[in-house]
């Protein structure tokens, strides 16, 4: 595919890197020459220096031939204008823009070909907010991702010594939970991936990824975690976009939320707009404040300021002071890698969340969702099967007959409204949503080919 990426920031660069390795023709546009210099040699891409929304620059970048434009400059307005011009002058088939301002996002009706022609809006803040909400919903989860509109979820937990399934074979899950179906998609043991069979024994400390219907997730988690009743106390540090949004959403559920904000004016602003949240003005790194706010009885502490270092330190402090689970927003990729083995329970990366949701739109085949896992090394994909045995490599085949690449496994299927957990004898039908876990993302092209229909499919 010919893809034009506007903006060589973190997300733009990461996407250029990933997509150029996957046999795409990439042009990266940025107004800052220094951001671009050297990239052309390091990555197999073309670069164009100039304002990302100017018609002349877009033409120079090859918009006439592009299948897709990805507008991820740091300005919403530039991203929207670029999409407008791509559509008006070049009829670009797919236009994806990152939009941050809530002020635009609350009016989805403006995003259509007749007004602001953006086909897909990516909002990192919204993605991170949803991610935290899902993690709060499932105490003990390291990662929770949605498929099939939330009907199917993939959850990662650290198997806890003494929990019912530790030191037991994967197949015994069925005996433990006769009325619940789930599939263990992958196990990470000391940082290496194991594709489990029924005979794989789950060990304490294993990072277990499993797939189940939404309603069954808590039951499966109980088999892998210690039995404790989770508390309802949550502390959010930082009342920026994400912190404020989260507090607003949490008010709809039965949580006791406190929101700490350094800036007095901002604290005042959000407190006027929140009803059941205690807003405190203070420093998130202040030990006294955390103790005073009863940190040791807090279920989730979530550091969400725009300062990575402050977030990491305050989350570590909160953990040390007794918070049950701590999460930190971490923007810098190097820190995300570092934090995974630290005392932090979850490092929230807006970059990784954004990349995952962007990938869904550039994959070949009818891919509806992609989640980037394990800091981008693994992926979980939801793809729709089309066609018939004549023109599809999956339709009409039993799961164990499908030629999946090494390290890939089918976790579940959504058929109509029914969730089917993958078992070898299930036969894939046209229109099935198939959820696949891929341990090694270099195999993604093979999965894409698997789900593509032959030329004669009509």
């Amino acid at each position, binding site marked *: 595919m*010919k893809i034009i990426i506007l903006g060589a920031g973190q997300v733009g660069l990461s996407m250029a890197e990933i997509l150029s390795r996957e046999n795409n023709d990439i042009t990266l546009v940025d107004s800052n020459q220094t951001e671009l210099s050297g990239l052309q040699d390091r990555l197999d891409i073309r670069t164009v220096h100039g304002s990302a929304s100017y018609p002349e620059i877009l033409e120079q970048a090859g918009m006439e031939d592009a299948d897709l434009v990805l507008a991820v400059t740091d300005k919403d307005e530039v991203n929207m204008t670029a999409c407008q011009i791509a559509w008006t002058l070049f*009829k670009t088939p797919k236009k994806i823009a990152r939009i941050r301002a809530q002020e635009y996002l609350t009016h989805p009706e403006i995003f259509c070909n007749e007004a602001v022609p953006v086909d897909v809006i990516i909002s990192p803040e919204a993605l991170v907010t949803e991610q935290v909400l899902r993690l709060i919903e499932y105490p003990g989860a390291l990662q929770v991702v949605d498929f099939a509109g939330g009907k199917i979820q993939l959850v990662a937990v650290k198997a806890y010594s003494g929990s019912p399934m530790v030191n037991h074979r994967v197949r015994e899950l069925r005996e433990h939970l006769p009325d619940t179906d789930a599939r263990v998609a992958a196990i990470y043991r000391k940082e290496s991936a194991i594709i489990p069979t029924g005979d794989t024994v789950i060990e304490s400390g294993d990072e277990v990824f499993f797939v189940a219907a939404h309603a069954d997730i808590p039951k499966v988690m109980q088999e892998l975690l210690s039995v404790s009743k989770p508390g309802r106390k949550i502390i959010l540090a930082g009342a920026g976009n994400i912190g404020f949004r989260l507090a607003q959403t949490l008010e709809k559920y039965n949580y006791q939320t406190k929101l700490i904000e350094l800036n007095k004016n901002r604290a005042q602003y959000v407190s006027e707009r929140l009803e059941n949240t205690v807003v405190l003005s203070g420093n998130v790194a202040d030990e006294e404040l955390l103790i005073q706010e009863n940190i040791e009885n807090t279920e989730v502490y979530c550091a969400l300021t725009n300062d990575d270092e402050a977030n990491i330190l305050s989350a570590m402090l909160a953990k040390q002071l007794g918070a049950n689970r701590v999460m930190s927003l971490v923007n810098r990729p190097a820190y995300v890698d570092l934090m995974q083995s630290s005392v932090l329970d979850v490092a929230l990366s807006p970059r990784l969340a954004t990349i995952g949701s962007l990938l869904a739109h550039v994959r070949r085949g009818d891919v509806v969702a992609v989640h980037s896992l394990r800091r981008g090394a693994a992926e979980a994909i939801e793809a729709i099967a089309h066609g018939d045995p004549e023109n599809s490599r999956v339709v009409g085949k039993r799961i164990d007959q499908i030629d999946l690449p090494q390290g890939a496994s089918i976790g579940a299927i959504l058929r109509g409204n029914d969730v089917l957990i993958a078992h070898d004898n299930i036969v894939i039908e046209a229109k099935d949503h198939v959820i696949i876990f891929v341990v090694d993302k270099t195999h993604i092209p093979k999965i894409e080919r698997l789900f593509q229909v032959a*030329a004669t499919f009509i």
Partner: protein
Amino acid sequence: MSDDIQHNATGFLSGFIARERIDVDVEVSSKKRLLEEVADLLTVHTDNLNRDTVFQILNERERLGSTGIGSGIAIPHGRIEGIEQPIICAMRLSESLNFDSIDDKPVVLVIGLLVPADADQTHLKILARLAGAFRDDEILATLKTCKDSSQLLDVLHGLQ
């Protein structure tokens, strides 16, 4: 070119391809531009078909898997509301173009096909028959070397 192909106008495409939907020496620089040209040709002299909609339909189908059937041929196609009979166009490119075809060979001959949204078996068979006809090396060579669009049309009309 053999006479029987040139003069036989009773093939399965008879009545589906109009002369104005044939073009040769088309210059395009990309798959996207090619699909735009196909959308243009398919919507020539039609009142009820929107060119942008057709372009979008062709793109969506292409996303599910390339319609490049190999040997330099692509048959971009799709289903569309508002037509009763299939609409077919054909174009030959001045230079071959990468189309993610099954054999990775660039395409030079492109047949565009629109079938009604609720297409019946006869309509659906056109695609399979086209793909079948292009397996014949002699026909392929003839199509690729036609000197103008009327000759191209004759050959297509003669396909059995």
